[in-house]
């Protein structure tokens, strides 16, 4: 009988939409503190100039651009789960899709902060937008940096719309379970959703359209990000493997972030019955696939440097493994490509502690990977006389950590005010006799 099962789904998921505990509020206050400190550091940077960072020629891109690429990548898992797995009709995605989509939205927002922070003179950011002006200045649409602006804006817009569209029936469920002011707020947010047949028909069609649009988009976004580097001639950047390598890495880090966040959150939000270990095991299986892709990419890079015969490229590969950034290189290789191999063992895949630890370590590894690619390549380019070892300053580190606080803060607040799991999607289709089913 579906009625009981349906009611249970509503009760299990909607109980998380409530006033959080004091410990939860304490954590939010801590994160808000981190954000506040980062805002002060940013203000200091704006007032003093980019000299407060560790950036210097030839390393013009450092921690900020590393964090930008990292956070864009984190968003990719949400789109993979919500769009690609939806089109493939993968059943287990329902349990983790909403949290992953929410993660995508805030990861892309976090990423979007970094080009602004890196810009220095942030007040002239509008120069990048195409608009008629008296100076006849237009963005150069041949530049991957302008591609980036368009791609990230599109990605953020589509992710937010897709996320909100999926939320509408669930917001109506919260509205119907609420009273007073809360009912009014959710009434506005659910925009008059009633679950009428007309609404469902258009909704499902629109959802499928969004999934179809988001699938090539997610592939394009990190490909575009990779062109920021691959189109340049810097040794260590100028590689044709970069687009697939970056997309695989993005999904790898995003899936790892899903594990890192969902394992504690399912306890905190009391969603253990809905987000089950088997769902997390499926995420772990996807990490094996992306981990193998990373292993392949890590192996191909030195091979291509050797096979291509370019001396500077060969030198760049050798310096990565032996130069000033060698500890980061070996750490990232171990964490991103070797550690996920442990997930081949079912015992590891089914241990939540192990999954949490692996997820966390892959995230560390993926941030280091971007650091090694960006900073390591710039620091040791064509002219040994110009080589420079970049180290991030306290301002850069504070802002990078503060951005992480912003991401977590927004995620934790949002998952308390929206259903963290899709309510309507979690309900099984009603069982019908053959005649009724047609």
């Amino acid at each position, binding site marked *: *009988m*579906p*009625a*009981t099962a*349906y*009611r249970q789904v*509503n009760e299990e998921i909607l109980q998380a939409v409530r006033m959080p505990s004091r410990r939860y509020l304490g954590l939010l206050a801590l994160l808000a503190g981190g954000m506040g400190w980062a805002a002060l550091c940013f203000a200091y940077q704006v007032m003093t100039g980019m000299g407060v960072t560790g950036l210097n020629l030839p390393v013009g891109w450092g921690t900020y651009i590393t964090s930008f690429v990292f956070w864009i990548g984190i968003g990719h898992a949400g789109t993979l789960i919500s769009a690609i797995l939806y089109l493939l009709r993968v059943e287990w995605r329902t349990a983790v899709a909403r949290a992953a989509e929410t993660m995508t939205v805030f990861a892309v927002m976090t990423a979007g902060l970094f080009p602004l922070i890196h810009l220095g003179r942030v007040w002239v950011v509008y120069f990048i937008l195409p608009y008629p002006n008296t100076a*006849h*200045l*237009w963005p*150069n*649409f*041949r530049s991957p940096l*302008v*591609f980036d602006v*368009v*791609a990230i804006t*599109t990605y953020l*817009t*589509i992710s937010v*719309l897709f996320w909100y569209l999926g939320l*509408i*029936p669930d917001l*109506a*469920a919260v*509205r*119907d*379970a609420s009273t007073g002011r809360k009912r009014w707020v959710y*009434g*506005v947010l659910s*925009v*008059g*959703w*009633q*679950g009428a*047949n*007309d*609404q*469902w*028909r*258009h*909704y*499902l*069609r*629109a959802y*499928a*359209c969004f999934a179809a*649009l988001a699938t*090539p*988009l997610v592939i*394009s976004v990190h490909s*575009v990000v990779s062109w920021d580097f691959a189109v340049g001639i810097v040794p260590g950047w100028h590689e044709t493997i970069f687009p697939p390598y970056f997309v695989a890495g993005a999904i790898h880090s995003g899936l790892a972030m899903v594990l890192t966040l969902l394992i504690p959150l399912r306890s905190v939000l009391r969603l253990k019955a809905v987000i089950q270990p088997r769902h997390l095991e499926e995420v772990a299986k996807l990490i094996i696939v992306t981990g193998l892709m990373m292993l392949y990419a890590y192996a191909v890079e030195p091979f291509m440097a050797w096979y291509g015969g370019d001396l500077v490229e060969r030198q760049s590969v050798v310096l990565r493994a032996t130069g000033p950034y060698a500890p980061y290189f070996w750490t990232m290789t171990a964490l991103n490509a070797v550690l996920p191999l442990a997930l081949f063992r079912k015992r590891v895949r089914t241990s939540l502690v192990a999954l949490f630890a692996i997820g966390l370590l892959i995230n560390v590894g993926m941030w280091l990977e971007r650091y090694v690619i960006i900073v390591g390549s710039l620091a040791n380019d064509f002219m040994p006389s110009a080589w420079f070892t970049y180290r991030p300053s306290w301002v850069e580190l504070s802002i990078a950590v503060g951005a992480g606080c912003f991401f977590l803060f927004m995620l934790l607040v949002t998952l308390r005010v929206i259903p963290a799991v899709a309510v*309507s999607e979690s*309900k099984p*289709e*009603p069982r*019908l*006799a053959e005649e*009724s089913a*047609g």
Partner: protein
Amino acid sequence: MSEAPRVAATFTEAEPLLAALRSLREAGIDRLTVYSPVPLHEAEALLPRQDSPIRWYALAAGIAGCVGGFALCIIATRFFGLTVGGKPVVSWLPFCVIGFELTVLIAGLATMGTVFLYSRLYPRSVAEDYDPRFSVDTFGISVQCEDDARGKVADLLREAGADEVRGGAEPAG
């Protein structure tokens, strides 16, 4: 012009709701609204209008976005007059990226706009015959019919196994 009166029924199972739909359609009644906590594809097959035009709007908007994306790049490069050293000023290959991104962006915005328009999604009160249980575990049918048909409609709904029927009594006099 005021709306025709409605007869509404609730069901705890989907099966009797489908039976009620069949009876109503056989009786020539087609001004029906079905409420359900999950999409009910079998009910869709029994209802008069079955297709959603949203994908066509998305396609048209996507094409417009693609053309707009290329146009933006071409116009901007022509206005800017950046020296490109003998290379083509209008370089199609890089413009494909902008064209693709704007295809997706405009198609997505159009999809969202049309789903809001067609599903009448805007901040408003729910319909009078809407029951909050429809978002939990209950199915419902709302039938628009003339006063003299209300009794017949209510009977059909009850016969099919409705748990509650409202608005079935014909007005006195």
